[in-house]
Each structure stands twice: as C-alpha cells, then as structure tokens.
C-alpha cells in the first residue's frame, strides 16, 4: 500500500483522463450505432413531421407577435360569428333554482354560493387522476376568473349599478323586468 504522493496524484490524473476518454469513445459508438439502426430501418418517420410542426409553430408565434396582425384581438367582445353582441356581464335573467328569486346570469355564481350557504374556504377534494397524483406538488392548479372581476373580488356591472357581491341585502338579485 503506497501513501498518496505527488507522483501518485499525477499518475491518477493521467489514468483517470484515459478512462474518461475510453468511456466517451464507447458512448460515441453507442450513439452512432443507434443512429445507424434508425437510419437503416427507417425508424425516424415521425421526426420530419415533428420538425415541420416546429417550424410552423415558430412562424405562427412570430406572426401573432406582430401587432399588425392582431385583428383577432381587436374584434374581441364586439360581435361574435353569429352577428350577436353581448354585454360584458351576462344579463339574462332567470330564477335561482334554490331560492326562486330572479337573478342575472353574470351574477349567479356569487349569489348561489351565499344562497346555498357554502363556505369559501371549502377544501378541494383529492382528484382521481393517476398522472396528476404522481406529481409531488399537492396543489397543481391554474385558476381562472371572469376577466371582469377586479382584485378585491367584487363585481361591478358596467352600467354603474351598485350591486356588490359582498352585499347581503341585494344579494345579487334584481327585480323581474
């Protein structure tokens, strides 16, 4: 058994680098062999399609980023394909299934929550989705609002009505037209 010496260290460094070179050469042959098989047996049929898709997608992004090409964004909320216009907050009025009071569509969910006496902090049920379960982060969710809600959770009607979600008295109901 020899004590570590400078000689030894230098020899080790040289040997190590020689071994590393060998491992690398071997892996280079692995890759070449794999590619050879793929080429000869035509196993890469999907690849050309994938590259084509990537190209189209990149082009699409470039075009979408071009402000001169955002016709889609401008026509938003003006008129739909059927030639209809809609108010920012849906104003259809129907009867609440729970309390039978008349309620406006766009304010139905906040009304119903109170009407049914459900708690806001209700915990979410564990979901049966095996791949989602494999994800180790417990809450894996993207939350979505109506775009017309502001940050403090109230919803104001665009016509200046003062109906507010937190207001127990009005409770989002309105008189039958």
């Amino acid at each position: 058994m020899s004590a570590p010496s400078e000689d030894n260290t230098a020899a080790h460094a040289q040997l190590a680098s020689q071994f590393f070179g060998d491992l690398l050469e071997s892996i280079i042959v692995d890759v070449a062999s794999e590619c050879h098989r793929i080429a000869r047996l035509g196993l890469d049929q999907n690849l050309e399609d994938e590259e084509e898709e990537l190209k189209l997608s990149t082009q699409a992004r470039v075009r979408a980023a071009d402000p001169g090409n955002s016709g889609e964004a401008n026509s938003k909320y003006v008129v739909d394909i059927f030639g209809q216009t809609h108010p920012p907050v849906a104003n259809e009025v129907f009867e609440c299934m729970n309390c039978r009071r008349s309620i406006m569509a766009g304010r139905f969910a906040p009304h119903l929550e109170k009407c049914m006496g459900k708690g806001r902090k209700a915990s979410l049920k564990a979901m049966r989705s095996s791949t989602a379960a494999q994800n180790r982060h417990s809450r894996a969710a993207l939350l979505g609002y109506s775009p017309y809600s502001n940050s403090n959770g109230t919803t104001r009607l665009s016509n200046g009505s003062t109906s507010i979600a937190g207001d127990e008295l009005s409770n989002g109901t309105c008189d039958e037209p």
Partner: protein
Amino acid sequence: MEISTTPRPCNHLADHKLRHGGISFYNTLHDSLSLSFNGRPTLALSSPSARCFSCSPSPHQERLYLCLICSSISCPRHALSHSRSSLGHSISVDVERAELFCSNCDDQVYDPDFDSILVRKFDGSSIIAAGDPYESVAERSCKRRRLRGHAVADLDYKRWKHLGDQRDKSCYPFGLRGLNNLGNTCFMNSVLQALAHAPPFRNYFLNGRHDRGSCQKMSSDQLCLICDIGVIFSAMFSGDRTPYSPAPFLYSWWQHSANLASYEQQDAHEFFISLLDGIHEKEVQSKPINKDLRDCACIAHRVFSGLLRSDVTCLTCGSTSTTYDPCMDISLHLGAGKCVSTGPVNKASKSNGSTGVSSLVGCLDLFTRREKLGSDQKLYCQNCGVHRDSSKQLSIKRLPLVLCLQIKRFEHSLIRKTLRKINWHLEFPFSLDMNPYLSSSIIRKRLGNRLSPLEGDEPHVSTEYEIFAVLTHTGMLESGHYVTFLRLGSQWYKCDDAWITEVDEEIVKSSQCYMMFYMQKMLY
C-alpha cells in the same frame, strides 16, 4: 424525401444463415445475451478483460466483435483480417451493443430473426406475431404517408353540419354556442365546450343513451349529474345561437360536490377530473357495472380512460416489476429549466430563460423517460430481497378514445414555498402519433430499437390522433381567464364564454395551451 423501405438484407449474412441452419445460426449466442442493469442488451463474456485476439500488445478497444462461427474476438480492424484468414467467418456480433456486424460489408447489419430472439428473451410477455417485423413497420409508415396525403373524410362533421343547415340557416357547425359566464365560471365553460365536441362523449348524451325520464323515477334525490350534462348538450345542439346559461348545471354540480362549491376561481383541470369522477360514480351507482376502473364501462372511462404501465427496475440486479394504472388524462411537465425537445429548430429559440419554448413531443419524451428514483425512494426488490435504488419508466399500455393532455404550467419554489406559473410557449402538433409512447415502443427502444414481435401486442389499436380542442389559460396563477379553441372541420373557433369567433390556426398555435384534447383519427 426518402421513403422508408425494408433494409437491404446483407447477402453475406443471408448466405451464412442458409449454410448454418437459419435461425439456429444464433443458437450459440442465446445464453450469453444479457441485460446490463440499465436494461440495455449486451453479451456477457466469461472474462471481463476480453480483448482482440490479434492486437498485441492489446490497447483498449471500444468495439469488440465475437465471431459467430469460432467465437474468437476481434477489434473492427482485425474482424476483416479474421474473415480473410478464416474463410466464411465474416459475421460477428458487437459484444457491448449486441448488434450484428459483417466484415465483408464492413458495417453493422440487421436481421429480424436476430432481433426477435433478443426481444423474446428479454420480454417474456410478448406474443409472437406472424410475418416479417421489418416489413410491418415499413408498410405502416407508407400507409401513414398515404393517409396524410389525402383529405380525411369527416363524415361525422358533415352529418352534423347537414342537420345544422336544416335547423339554422347559418353555415356554422352544429353545436357551436356560447356559454354565459355566471361569475368566475370560465373554468367550467371552457371544459364544457371541449366535452360537448368530443364525439363519443357527446353522442352518448345526445343519442339519449341515458334516459332522463326513467332516471328521475329511479333516483330518490332527484339529482343526476349525467342528466344535467345531457341538458347542457341538448341546449348547445338545439340550433339556438344565443348564449346559454349553464345555471341549472352549476346548481346541481355544487350540490353533487359540496366541497367544490364556492364562488372562487377554480382550476379547469381539477373541474374536468372531478366531473368525470362524478359521472363514473353516478353510473356505477345506477348500474351494476364493473367497479374495477381498468375496464369500467361508464361513459367517462369508455371515452377517456387509458392504461399506464410503470416499470420499476432494480439498479442492482436489473429485475423489473411492472404495474398498470388507469388514467383519465396525462399530466405533463414543461420540463422547467431543462431542455426537453430534440429538434434543432427548438434549440435555437430556447435559450432565453423564462420565455423558453418546449414541444409537446418533448414533454411526452420526458414523461416516458427512464427516471432514476432518489436515494430516499428506495424500493423493495423481490429478487434481491432488500430495498434498492431503482429506476422508473412510464409508458402507455392502452390509449383512450379521447386523449386529454394537461400541461403543468406551474413551478414549485422550495425556497419561497410558492407556485409560479410558467408562461413558456409550447409547440403542439394538430396530428399526433402516440405510437412512440406505447409500452411496446418504449420496451423496444429500451432493447436498442429492436423491432419486435411486440408489434402484434395490440393489433388493431390506432395510435394516430387529431386535435379538436385546446384550453388556454391567460394571466396569472391566481387570476386569469380560460378560453377554449375548437376545431370543427378544418376551421378553428374561439369559445370565450358568450363569444364565439373564428380564428386562424396561427392564433391557436401561438396560444398558451393548458389542456389539449385529441381524438383517435378514425373518429375525426
């Protein structure tokens, strides 16, 4: 573009096999074929220090070839001289990679019989299919090319469109109808739009497979989630184009799932999963159907359920244990911070940090990649009898009719203990071939892309999918907005609550997709 063909067989190899009794030419190899602990096939030699017989003094060689006639070992250079000096000894096998080599051709050569022996040895579950495995792949890809060249007949859509024309003079596809936002309910609307246009799912409701009348008589609590969905779909396909308010559904949904009932922003994917869950529970309740999720006959499982295969391999002895789990969707990591795609185009545009680009194909590759489990996750190995370091690999054993892919657009920060939304762009194809992610393909790839009799494993399964709905999420993690893009015929439509508009496919391709719905091509 080159069209794949059956590889030109090596004449020398064919000649050798003829003279040495066909497949039995490989008999000598059968016992020495083995798997390294990472599952790659190699040849186990009696001595680990085997080297070229002719090189002297023998330097290290990264390639060693074992002669199939006399079992002498040569480096690539001496393989040629060996075949010259010993006439007829031209076929050998690469010891480390278990690939055939012909020194007359001076190249690696391929033989389906050799591959079959190898695959049969290492995958006991496989069934031997008749015919030439090489040909079947070549034929398959030719067929696919042909299919791609032709416009796919969209019978279903034409039928709907025809009906639509009768009821509504507008030329828009039947079933296209906006849904009113009831107050933070875009998560629900976006999922309902996608479900209403998933043909096998929708048809079940529209064809009256679930009878509302008799259901109400049987049910004591008067609540039926399936009836509720039927009501929405009927309304959407009524021909009326004014936005519909899915209020009765929301009411009964909240009654069904008391714990989900809150006027809060919610996650569309969670809603989707719990909706399918609710349908399953209801059907199992009302009908004495199989409770085993693996072949549950409820409409949710019939349409969306696939089977995931998970192979856990012991890193010490190489033995593998396999489990199967049903799944209603596949959740994919965006591969935060890591390169996940393979295309050279992608490489170029990927380097700019938070605005990085990934591809769906890259995400699927990552999903089915062999993953080494951490040392804190040692699993019990039946063979070794102790807990060992293991690797895990997922693959798809059975594909669903409608494939839902969810992109995990969130990142967990361990330091700040918060979730962050990843706004990366994700490239996704409109036509998706799931074949590379099937268990048969994954195992074949593990065995070095050997074309195997596994092809015959699931004979009539179509692996080609067409996209029909994309759910996008814009905005922040806590607050944002969901919109669904629907592809009906060859046109894309944007369903943004009450607003339905036509959009170019560029808009869809550049959108921030969150959930993608693909259906089997034969249904499209």
